[in-house]
């Protein structure tokens, strides 16, 4: 039984090290992997939207800081390409 536990723990630790190595490779370095795990992964969601779904709406603020408009206001007549992102 002890031997089984030892092996299980060993395999789990190995997988953890592999996962961290993979994340480090993706992020660029072990430090980036830690930051990625702390700051990025909690905000990354695959989401449930799929092709054919009704497009959700949300209210946005224009660059003038005053005008508010809805995404769905921009979908009448022609397709709308939505580009989500930030500066950094």
């Amino acid at each position, binding site marked *: 039984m002890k031997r089984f536990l030892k092996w299980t723990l060993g395999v789990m630790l190995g997988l953890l090290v592999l996962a961290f190595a993979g994340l480090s490779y993706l992020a660029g370095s072990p430090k980036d992997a830690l930051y990625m795990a702390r700051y990025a992964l909690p905000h990354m969601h695959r989401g449930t939207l799929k092709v054919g779904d009704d497009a959700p709406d949300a209210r946005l603020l224009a660059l003038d800081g005053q005008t508010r408009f809805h995404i769905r206001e921009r979908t009448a007549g022609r397709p709308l390409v939505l580009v989500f992102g930030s500066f*950094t």
Partner: protein
Amino acid sequence: MQIYNDYKEHADFLTVYVREAHPTDEWQMKSNVKDDVCYAQPKTLEQRMAIANDFTKRFKYPLPFGVDDMANAADLAYSAWPERLYIIDEHGYIAYRGGMGPFNYKPDEARAWLAGRYGEVKHPEKTEAAPAPKKS
């Protein structure tokens, strides 16, 4: 953004600015320091607006632009962070759903959807003229 120049006669475009991906107080990238793109994560809508305006001015960004609210309503509705592309058709349905950026952010897929609908369009790339050499 070439895809915008190529297809703006056929489709509307809207950039939605969402919460920062690599602010100075979270996961800052060396490339952002090198490019002098250093901002803390906005805590107010005014701060978010200021960064969005910096961005559009710095790059003379031509696309229509909207800023997500501090509740991140658009981001949450579209699972958009850190970057993502969608196309909504003229009836209000999702026609193309891009993958999560940066690894699955693929403008070529959106371009392929537009090309399938409107045909291949490729205008010459606009390049800014190099500054004239200073006279000594």
